[in-house]
């Protein structure tokens, strides 16, 4: 393999690599609230806010890209605060529904916003994102979550996730933690949104649908929400899987078609039923299954 064909190989698959990173960020943004037991499905709305903020700043200001990205993360984070107050009081399914509603309201808002051409969105956005930036952002996010895990805040989150009323009686300010996680998730989604917009040259409301959020949720759950890097693994796996299937399928003569969502759905179902802690728990399970033979059962 010479240099030229390596370069071509990179260019061919560059966008796939980029999207693995972006999907990883998005999966992590869903994970932040899952980590304290809340299911927030409004990430598409935060992502839209980040994407549009980024594009508008790029067109109407001369700010350097890092500043634009910071703003794109900040705007949805700020909006998450007034959203969080009324909404985090709700339990489980109600929270999920409320956040779905929020995401849709944001999308419809942008569809009707003349300033950004409504449904047409903004095009010819300069491609300021490089793949390394995406992975740098992902790295930072993972690092933050990793430090969080071992810290006191991390334990508090786990306590809230396991049993919120009990955590409260122990003096943990559950409300503050849940809000903080919502804000963090919003910032991640906003950042991913801006990075994506400056990679795909355009921003339009159709990107930010409920279906997109479901995808993000699938990545997080399939990867595994017990470990901080689980969602990123899920994102990588599920972004790659259709590509691999497509390559294989085209040799065998299969049409891609509905295959991709079908596989996504099937993998999600299998995971949730049989591997609820996600792919990342697979090595541990296999190890236990192999080690457990003949030996007395160990405490979980």
């Amino acid at each position, binding site marked *: 393999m010479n240099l030229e064909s390596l370069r*071509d*190989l990179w*260019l*061919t*698959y*560059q*966008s*796939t690599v980029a*999207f693995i990173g972006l999907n990883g960020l998005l999966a992590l943004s869903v994970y932040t609230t899952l980590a304290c037991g809340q299911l927030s499905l409004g990430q598409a709305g935060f992502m839209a806010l980040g994407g549009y903020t980024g594009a508008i700043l790029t067109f109407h200001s001369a700010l350097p890209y890092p500043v634009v990205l910071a703003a794109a993360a900040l705007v949805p984070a700020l909006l998450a605060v007034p959203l969080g107050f009324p909404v985090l009081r709700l339990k489980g399914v109600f929270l999920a529904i409320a956040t779905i509603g929020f995401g849709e309201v944001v999308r419809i808002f942008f*569809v*009707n916003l003349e300033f950004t*051409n*409504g*449904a*047409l*969105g903004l*095009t*010819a956005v300069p*491609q300021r994102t490089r793949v390394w930036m995406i992975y740098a952002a992902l790295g930072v996010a993972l690092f933050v979550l990793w430090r969080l895990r071992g810290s006191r805040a991390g334990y508090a989150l786990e306590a809230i996730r396991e049993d919120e009323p009990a955590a409260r009686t122990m003096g943990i300010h559950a409300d503050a933690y849940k809000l903080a996680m919502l804000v963090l998730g919003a910032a991640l989604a906003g950042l991913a949104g801006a990075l994506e917009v400056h990679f*795909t*040259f*355009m921003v*339009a*409301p*159709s*990107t930010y649908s409920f279906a997109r959020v479901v995808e993000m949720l699938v990545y997080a759950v399939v990867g595994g929400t017990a470990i901080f890097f689980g969602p990123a693994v899920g994102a990588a796996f599920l972004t790659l899987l259709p*590509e691999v299937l497509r390559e294989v399928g085209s040799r065998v003569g299969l*049409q*891609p*078609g*509905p295959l*991709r969502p079908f596989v996504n759905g099937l993998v999600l179902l299998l995971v949730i039923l049989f591997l609820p802690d996600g792919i990342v728990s697979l090595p541990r399970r296999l190890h236990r299954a192999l080690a457990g033979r003949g030996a007395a059962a160990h405490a979980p």
Partner: protein
Amino acid sequence: MRFAGRLTLVATSLLFAALQARAETVKIGAAFSITGNAAVYGAQQKAGVLLAVEEVNKSGKLKGITLEVIVEDDATSKEQGIAVFQRFINRDKVSAIIGPTLSTTATAADPIAQQSRAPVVAVSNTAPKGITDIGDYIWRVSLTEAQVIPSALQNARAKLGFKNAALLYGNDDVFTKAGFDVMKAALEKEGIPIVEIQTFATKDRDFNAQLTALKGKNPDFLMVSALAEQAAGIVTQARQLGWNVPIMGGNGFNSPAFIKNAGQAAEGVYVGTSWNKASPDPVNQAFIAAMKAKGNDPDQFCAQAYTGVLVIAEAIREAGMKGGRDDVKAGFAKVKDLPTPLGKFSFLPNRDGNHAAAIQVVKGGRFEIVQ
């Protein structure tokens, strides 16, 4: 001398081999929505391209050059569109790309082709802005709404003589919104007052509320910018509400699926079109016959995709039978009055397509050209 003899032999065989190598393959990448929201159009486009490539190769008009087309699914999604373009450009090393199906996908994928200096022929992107503007490697065969609607409107007005109008459009789709902008501008240019504007979302099935509101303002004429699915629903529900106002649709109506799904309600609906299906032009008739022989009743999208391949073939010919990317690009500029099912085709200086548009009316379950 022996040496001279051997030298001549080698030279001749080398020359021979070089001449043989002239039988080269030029690859074209076709990115269409085989799945996703725009799948309705993608299937027709694929059929059009495959037929065109087959015919061009059989005709031998590109002496020694064989066209090979690779069709991939853009899944009506930006991400897939980008990925497909990347594969075409960097892995398959195509000389030109046809597609993608929707304008939305194009705005994300075309810049990549422009950056990599690979020519793109848009065959179904009709948003007036944001396509050919991307750069000098992006060319377009499909007429934009701005090229079709104004003359169709004038034609309709001359026939029906209406005094005012109302508008209904899908506000969350690039194409239908662009169509609306053109319709509104055209009405204003003609000095026709607009009494009411209503919108809907692409996923909507129920238009009764909007139609009732529009009907209440009593317009003489209704212009609708919608994709084929919604078009059928809108027209059906309007007639069910007892509203017999003349209706004119944009390019989205231009599909047999519209007539099939709207049934009786489609009668009398006006639609501007890039493709005059009834044109007696022999190139057009031959195209229709060949498509029907393959079991496919062609629609406008099919005709445009077919033309896209013809244009690329012509560009290769104009470039001196050379099939490299820059050859094709240079060749495009030289395409003039090329006979296609769409009529005599040329490119405008801004790389948009240029050929005569027409207006149709639905009569007896088929599109009929209005003279």
